[in-house]
């Protein structure tokens, strides 16, 4: 994402420092991660110190400071999925990708995140790959799903 794109988002929000988080969310939404240059531009334009932006970018779960992998994997670890065995699903995903939640593998193939609730508890335990929901899974089925993505 280039500086122009970032400026456009900032202007859309009126250059108001109070809308900092909304601005960052939008950059994250379009670019899928927050490059350092983007943060610096936002800091400069909104006149918000980098220290604060650094904190916000690491505080909220929606933000990523590294590029995401080609396949974004979300494992629901909400209470309902948890009592239905989500941690074993997460294990299967970790085994397959070799990474922990919040990480992206070295080949940028997978990014793995846990989420608190996806609103489809009836399908739990479940995982979502690139927006597609795979529900009512056993750990073995979860491994099968992951294999489809390489």
């Amino acid at each position: 994402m280039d500086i122009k794109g970032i400026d456009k988002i900032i202007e859309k929000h009126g250059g108001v420092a109070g809308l900092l988080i909304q601005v960052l969310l939008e950059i994250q939404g379009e670019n899928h991660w927050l490059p350092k240059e983007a943060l610096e531009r936002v800091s400069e334009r909104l006149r918000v110190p980098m220290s604060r932006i650094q904190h916000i970018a690491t505080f909220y779960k929606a933000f990523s400071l590294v590029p995401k992998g080609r396949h974004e994997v979300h494992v629901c670890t909400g209470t309902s999925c948890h009592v239905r065995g989500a941690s074993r699903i997460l294990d299967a995903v970790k085994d397959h990708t070799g990474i922990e939640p919040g990480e992206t593998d070295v080949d940028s193939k997978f990014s793995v995140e846990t989420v608190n609730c996806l609103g489809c508890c009836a399908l739990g335990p479940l995982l979502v790959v690139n927006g597609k929901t795979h529900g009512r899974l056993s750990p073995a089925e979860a491994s099968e799903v992951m294999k489809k993505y390489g």
Partner: protein
Amino acid sequence: MGIVTLTIDNREVKAEEGMTVLEAARGAGIEIPTLCWHEKLKPYTVCRICVVDVDARGWTSLDTACSRPVKEGLVVRTRSAKIDRIRKTILELLLAHAPDSPKLREYASEYGADRDRFEKDPSFCIDCGLCVRYCAEVKKKNAVGFVDRGIRREICFVPEVALRECNGCKECFPLCPTSYLQAAFVLVQALTAPAQPEKP
């Protein structure tokens, strides 16, 4: 500004409106421990070691002395079994991170805190935020800030700003109740300065 009268540890204490219970107590020579408080900074209320019992018109609660505004008729108790237990536990929890901090050790002996109660986890920083807030509020440089959240929260320098500002300032160093800040700063220098051949 008006003058109000409150009771601290059974003593009548006069204080100016707008003062905190901590300031009123110290003015009267009553000591309350603090870790995250500094006279030049806004109350931050995070170390929680200054908790006291406050009775406002029959409504009792624990509150942080460093933030609680004085009011006419407040009744404050700075020590009780419960308060001492809280302070002792907080000290023990923090000593796991900074076992050699002089300030923590001094309070520890007062409150009977066991330095070895919890497994050592020497991050040295106790997240009091003195350096962060001093740099932001007094120096207005924002060279250092917090990152992350929950149990992963820690301080972090902004390399570009630190490189420019810190060498000539270092005013936050003596504020640190541990010695972590020094270490962190050196680390940033090491990370951002052009690579130098290692000395044998």
